[in-house]
């Protein structure tokens, strides 16, 4: 018998898509049965109360959670988000219900022994409810009491060699795509760079000294599966600067229909026979491809590496061999001055351990932003406020036409004194010799 009636939530148990309500009910029953005889450290009926408070929100059309800002683990400014229920008498199990962010492993690969350890820890000391995973990428432990925070952190670090993730004005937990681990498009080792920078910048991740949040995301190619270009203050996107590899036999196999285009992912609809002219050559944004004597030709100098042709014919075309990454900066969601897409800062850099060139760019940007950034100003907004030129100045990067979509629309150039012959100081008397008052 359920502790709270949940007639509205019950309607989310039907339908084919996995029901979180059914899962919560299964967890509530599991805690009640307590098959492993645990000494639960937060109330046994916590999941019943989650269901109860969520049902109440469904009824009221309003949340029943309050924010809390103080709780955390000692010495860290991130990784814990305080939560309290605004109906603690009705739902005592979730009266204090804090979130913990646990830094996920690269590309979210797991072994079951590690996952089970996390489950056992969270079963004993928390609600047993998680997010796999949060939007930024962390493993989210959803709901525990204040006195359990340090205990959980102690076991995570001592037993499982595992740290918390970021929140607040910190470096947020970096996240990467699957990359070279299982993708032929990856132009650099996303896990390698993601892990390296995560370890290098642990202090920035745990102890807030930035004006606001800061995100790194790592995409192995311009397909951008982790959406770095839209949401990371610094996106690292794999690219190459030589030629696309062509296997002409495989091209013919696509044309002849022996191979299905786009890795066979249009299979449930009849799109007609594959037409290389229409589906590849005509859709190339730079029109740098053509057929000649039955061979596919590419003018690689004109290619902008959009990935379309490679995506359509992955067995015939390969990313180039001279690989590295582009760095784009300043992407963010709309709050406050509107959304920003990442802007290209470094067109190409090799991504090789120990990544010194990349770290130099990062640290120059941080020094600038930490000194000049206003409170709650993202890097992208600082770039807008002080100008792209200022960013080039602090990073020592040479301006190049790749930095712009098109040149400026106005001539209001703020010339600096040292750029103008003879400087700004002039003798008025000298001027007056030739120009009367």
């Amino acid at each position, binding site marked *: 018998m359920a502790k709270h009636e949940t007639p509205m939530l019950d309607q989310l148990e039907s339908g084919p898509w*996995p029901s979180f309500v059914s899962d919560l009910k299964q967890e509530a029953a599991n805690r009640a049965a307590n098959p492993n005889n645990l000494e639960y450290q937060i109330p046994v009926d916590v999941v019943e109360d989650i269901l109860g408070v969520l049902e109440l929100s469904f009824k009221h059309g309003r949340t029943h959670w309050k924010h809390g800002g103080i709780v955390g683990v000692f010495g860290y400014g991130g990784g814990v988000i305080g939560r309290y229920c605004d109906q603690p008498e009705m739902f005592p199990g979730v009266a204090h219900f804090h979130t913990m962010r646990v830094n996920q492993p690269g590309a979210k690969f797991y072994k079951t022994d590690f996952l089970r350890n996390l489950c056992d820890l969270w079963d004993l000391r928390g609600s047993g409810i998680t997010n796999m995973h949060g939007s930024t990428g962390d493993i989210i432990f959803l709901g525990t009491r204040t006195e359990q925070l340090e205990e959980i952190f102690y076991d995570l670090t001592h037993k499982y060699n595992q740290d918390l993730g970021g929140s607040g004005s910190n470096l947020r937990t970096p996240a990467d795509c699957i990359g070279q681990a299982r993708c032929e498009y990856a132009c650099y080792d996303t896990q390698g760079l993601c892990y390296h920078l995560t370890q290098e910048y642990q202090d920035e991740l745990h102890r807030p000294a930035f004006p606001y949040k800061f995100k790194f995301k790592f995409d192995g190619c311009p397909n951008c599966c982790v959406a770095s270009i839209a949401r990371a203050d610094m996106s690292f996107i794999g690219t190459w600067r030589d030629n696309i590899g062509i296997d002409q036999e495989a091209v013919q196999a696509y044309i002849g229909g022996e191979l299905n285009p786009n890795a066979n992912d249009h299979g449930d609809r009849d799109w007609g026979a594959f037409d290389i002219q229409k589906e590849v050559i005509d859709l190339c944004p730079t029109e740098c491809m053509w057929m000649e004597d039955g061979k596919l030709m590419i003018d690689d100098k004109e290619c902008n590496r959009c990935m379309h042709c490679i995506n359509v014919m992955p067995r015939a075309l390969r990313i180039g061999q001279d690989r590295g990454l582009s760095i784009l900066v300043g992407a963010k969601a709309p709050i406050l001055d509107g959304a920003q897409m990442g802007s290209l800062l470094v067109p190409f850099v090799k991504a090789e351990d120990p990544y010194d060139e990349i770290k130099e760019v990062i640290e120059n940007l941080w020094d600038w932003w930490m000194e000049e950034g206003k409170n709650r100003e993202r890097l992208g907004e600082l770039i807008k406020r002080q100008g792209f030129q200022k960013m080039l100045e602090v990073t020592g990067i040479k301006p190049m036409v790749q930095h712009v979509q098109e040149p400026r629309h106005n001539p209001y150039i703020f010339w600096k004194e040292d750029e103008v012959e003879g400087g700004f100081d002039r003798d008025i008397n000298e001027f007056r010799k030739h120009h009367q008052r």
Partner: protein
Amino acid sequence: MAFVSTGYDPKEPMKDRITDIGPRKYDEFYPPVIAKNKGKWLYHEVLEPGVLVHVAESGDEVYTVRCGGARLMSVTHIREICEIADKHCDGYLRFTTRNNIEFMVDSKDKVKPLVDDLESRKFDGGSYKFPVGGTGTSITNIVHTQGWIHCHTPATDASGPVKATMDVLFDYFKSHKMPAKLRVSLACCLNMCGAVHCSDIAILGYHRKPPILDHEYLDKMCEIPLAIAACPTAAIKPAKVEFEGQKLNSVAVKNERCMFCGNCYTMCPSMPLSDQEGDGIVLMVGGKVSNRISAPKFSKVVVAFIPNEPPRWPKTTEAIKNMVEKYEANANKYERLGEWAERIGWERFFDICGLEFTHHLIDDFRDPAYYTWRQTTQFKF
């Protein structure tokens, strides 16, 4: 319920403290076939919706079975995932950026038993636990935020609308019949802690009423300067108010400047803004993050408001299904939703989708607004 100590001593928090160790290293968790062939993959192919094969230079193959699920997940459910991974995949698995679970096996004969096992598992309520799909030109899992399950400023729920939407789109999750991939995302308020602003379809919770002021408690519970500083549009001022004959320190809100973000409520619990009639959903469409063919794009607001309708948000899911079907029927092969809308023109997009255009859909927020107005005589009637 006796307290069980790990060994941590609250009086001496620094004793034996371990900090700054970061996550576990990725390569501890690579399946052997991944560890062996990393960086040496030749090509991949989608065998059927939800099943991929990647082939390496060595000739090795890895078969991946992808299945959907709710990101809100219990330890019991995770243990079941572990059981499946132990049974079929030597104890390895991974999650994707979009909350899918991937089980990998190293030979083709292991695929069918795995798929059959996954598809056979159902919750007591009848829904699938591990529906296989979400690859290629399907509509894959929705990325989303917390909503009413855990957040203090949401304007809608997250898990509820996501479940309702994926039920409606389930057939698309299981098939490859779209012109290109279509990504749906949900953020439960405009702060977008899940950045949804570049999605083919974004479901966004939105408040429409300014905060309620709890004058009696405001100065007791909040620091007024912090509440004022929290406001991104400078709509909050200090104010003296009369309450039961007493003069109290409080704040005043300039309602016409309020953008309904709830940032003041985060700093000051005496300024709640949630409201059953005021809160609801905005639909944004046409964004993308890939650089394929055209540059990444922001999503655009095409439905200014739909009321919250728990438990199944029928108007929201109906509006989404309608746009998905129109896109499916009208877009060219490889064309993303936003590319299709730009090719036919937004006037035609509203036509075809039967959407009403209102003044709410014309941008009037700061500088970028100008760039969205039409500055040409080229338009369609």
